[in-house]
């Protein structure tokens, strides 16, 4: 049913790609063993900055996972036929992204062997409990949807009726996974950078910009590597979604900046100051945050002009800019910026160590590997049906 | 079927690997079939519970103690013989009676293949209190 054997046949380039990814996963795993042996002291985390790259990557990839809804909703709810070919790609990307999220959480835990305590002793008052429910449910849902629709395509039969309500359910569920992840942060009285009602809307906007941007890049890559063409209409519609989501995301960020700096409340200002100007001699994040801003504006300019948005080369640049910009904002600035300055005003420098970065790369590589295998399988079914 | 020899060879190899504990144990002349000798406490003859129960379920007992002390604050145990004990692994069990971890705890654990009870990571014993440079 899962057709994994279809991922075992491929060209030399395919096997070179898969082998290199496996090597990165191996090296990352070895670094993780080091971390298991010595503890999280091998990372750059500290008493003040207790969450870093692992949790920020988790936050970023929940957004990518949620973005599958941007292809599922138009196709299944509004019968937008142009997305017919790529809903499977969105769903498989969601499965991959959620798996990466789970891996990022796992490597961040101090006592990972006790993870099952979350199931043995559920705590409904903790948002983390609901995050576990939401992510597990979303993973299961998308895996089942992808497997069932792909199998139906292979057999060239219509999908079974029972899958339709599951697909419809996955739409609000996708919204909920990223909302619940935002609620992890936005309900904490201790962190004024996160204690804002707009965090959940910000998360969703950035997810719906970065996720479809990645999907566009993947579709264009697939077109280059195989005969699979998502279709010009589909790509352009996705690009429009990225445009609106990017614009809304930038607006939300500017609204935050306004509240912080017009009110001049020190607790609100100081986190933005740390990220964009630097505090107490620590400004190592400043260039990255301004790069994020620059990239987002460049991307918006490229996307807002139809002539440029429809030019494939410029679209690729725009999508890369969106993805990197939001990765810098969510995957670097959000967590560290929320924790610095600390509740006692301490500015502690956080920089990921080599083992920490290698573990992150290992998880990135396992995600790339999953997407490769999944898309290979999906493509083989599509090619058979041609 | 030209695959038959290959399949049979693979099956034999698989069964052989999976049954390793059985034939390896049978071949090992040094492996004892009797329980290892353990050093019993010098003074006390009576444990907090009968020895047979302790042998089979001491981890369940300790788990109950953990929840009762940490979560309910019920720190004292009245044993079946009326004696009152503190539910304290270090100060009751290890300090008053089972002072030799190697000759008592580890003998049975090694024999039974209990892999790494990690209680010792936190709970001290008389031999585990040590001095080291900060």
């Amino acid at each position: 049913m899962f057709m994994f054997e279809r991922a075992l046949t491929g060209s030399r380039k395919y096997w070179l790609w898969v082998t290199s990814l496996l090597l990165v996963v191996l090296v990352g795993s070895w670094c993780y063993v080091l971390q298991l042996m010595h503890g999280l002291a091998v990372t750059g985390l500290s008493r003040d900055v207790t969450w870093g790259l692992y949790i920020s990557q988790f936050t970023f990839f929940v957004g990518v996972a949620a973005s599958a809804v941007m292809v599922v909703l138009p196709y299944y709810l509004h019968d937008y036929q142009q997305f017919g070919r790529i809903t499977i790609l969105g769903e498989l990307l969601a499965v991959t992204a959620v798996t990466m999220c789970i891996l990022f959480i796992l490597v961040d835990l101090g006592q990972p062997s006790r993870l099952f305590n979350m199931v043995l002793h559920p705590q409904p008052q903790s948002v983390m409990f609901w995050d576990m429910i939401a992510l597990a449910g979303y993973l299961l849902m998308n895996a089942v949807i992808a497997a069932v629709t792909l199998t139906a395509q292979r057999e060239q039969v219509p999908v079974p009726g029972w899958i339709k309500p599951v697909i419809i359910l996955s739409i609000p569920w996708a919204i909920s996974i990223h909302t619940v992840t935002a609620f992890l942060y936005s309900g904490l009285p201790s962190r004024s950078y996160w204690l804002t009602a707009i965090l959940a809307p910000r998360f969703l906007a950035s997810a719906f910009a970065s996720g479809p941007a990645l999907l566009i890049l993947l579709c264009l890559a697939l077109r280059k590597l195989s005969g699979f063409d998502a279709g010009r209409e589909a790509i352009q519609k996705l690009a429009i979604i990225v445009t609106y989501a990017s614009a809304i995301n930038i607006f939300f960020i500017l609204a935050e900046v306004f509240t912080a700096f017009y009110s001049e409340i020190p607790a609100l200002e100081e986190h933005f100051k740390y990220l964009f100007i630097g505090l107490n001699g620590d400004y190592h994040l400043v260039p990255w945050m301004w790069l994020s801003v620059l990239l987002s504006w460049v991307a918006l300019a490229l996307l807002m002009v139809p002539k440029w948005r429809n030019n494939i080369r410029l679209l690729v640049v725009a999508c890369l800019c969106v993805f990197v910009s939001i990765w810098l904002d969510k995957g670097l600035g959000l967590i560290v910026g929320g924790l610095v300055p600390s509740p006692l005003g301490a500015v502690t420098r956080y920089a990921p160590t080599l083992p920490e970065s290698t573990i992150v790369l290992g998880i990135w590589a396992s995600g790339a590997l999953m997407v490769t295998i999944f898309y290979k399988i999906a493509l083989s079914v599509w090619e058979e049906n041609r | 079927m030209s695959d038959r020899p290959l399949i049979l060879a693979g099956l034999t190899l698989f069964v052989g690997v999976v049954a390793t504990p059985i034939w390896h144990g049978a071949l090992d002349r040094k492996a004892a079939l009797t329980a290892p000798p353990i050093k019993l406490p010098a003074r006390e003859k009576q444990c907090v519970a009968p020895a047979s129960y302790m042998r089979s379920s001491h981890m369940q007992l300790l788990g109950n103690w953990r929840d009762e002390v940490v979560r309910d604050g019920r720190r004292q145990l009245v044993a079946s013989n009326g004696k009152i004990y503190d539910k304290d692994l270090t100060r009751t069990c290890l300090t008053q009676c089972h002072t030799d971890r190697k000759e008592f705890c580890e003998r049975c654990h090694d024999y039974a293949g209990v892999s790494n009870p990690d209680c010792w990571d936190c709970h001290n014993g008389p031999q585990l209190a040590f001095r080291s440079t900060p």
Partner: protein
Amino acid sequence: MKITRKDFLRFSGLALLAVAGRRAVRAVGERASAPPAKPVRWGMVIDLQKCRQKDGCDRCIKACHSTHNVPQFADRAHEVKWIWKEPFQNVFPAAQTDYTREFYGNLPVLLACNHCDDPPCQDVCPVDATWRREDGVVTIDWHRCIGCRYCMAACPYGARSFNWQDPRPAIATVNPDFPTRTKGVVEKCNFCEERLAKGLGPACVESCEEKAIAFGDLERPDSEVRQVLRSRFAVQRQPELGTGPSVYYLV
């Protein structure tokens, strides 16, 4: 007499319900008729004037950390501390102005866990490894903690520390009467609950030569802490957050 399967099932179901119902009624009745427990709320009042009588004094810190096997790491990033001192302007930043900094900006303030009445750390813990006890002590079950550090993110007071590595090599002398912790779990001041269970006061309170820390039951009107709070003006850390700390400061 032959009874149908449907009747049999209906009969058994009703019988089970009756048994369960009787049990439930009994349990509720027992709860209701149990004698109401006298509420205890352990609290602390720290007299900062008395505390700064001796310059650089850290008797309470040493007492706490040695009693509880708190590791001492040289690397500030990995430090573990249950009780420590910070300059006034870090602890009460909103009470600080350019004109007052000169006088009391750098005066030391003794910090530990506030043992809040409504602790955010309890709300966020996904496995119930940390919770507020009936007597007000916010405690940690080190067997349960998965080391996710969500409680550390949630604490508005920076009271919690994480064991980034095995703590034992960094403990000079192990106190055999208290466990050490393992790498990968969070720890903090526990109001010396193991001493309270034996009727003793917390180590920091007992070790202070200036008697700067008052400790007692906030619910008892005649306790030492209540008497102090009736006689002096006391402040708390960030009370506007609604956490309800049990630690007061006499400035």
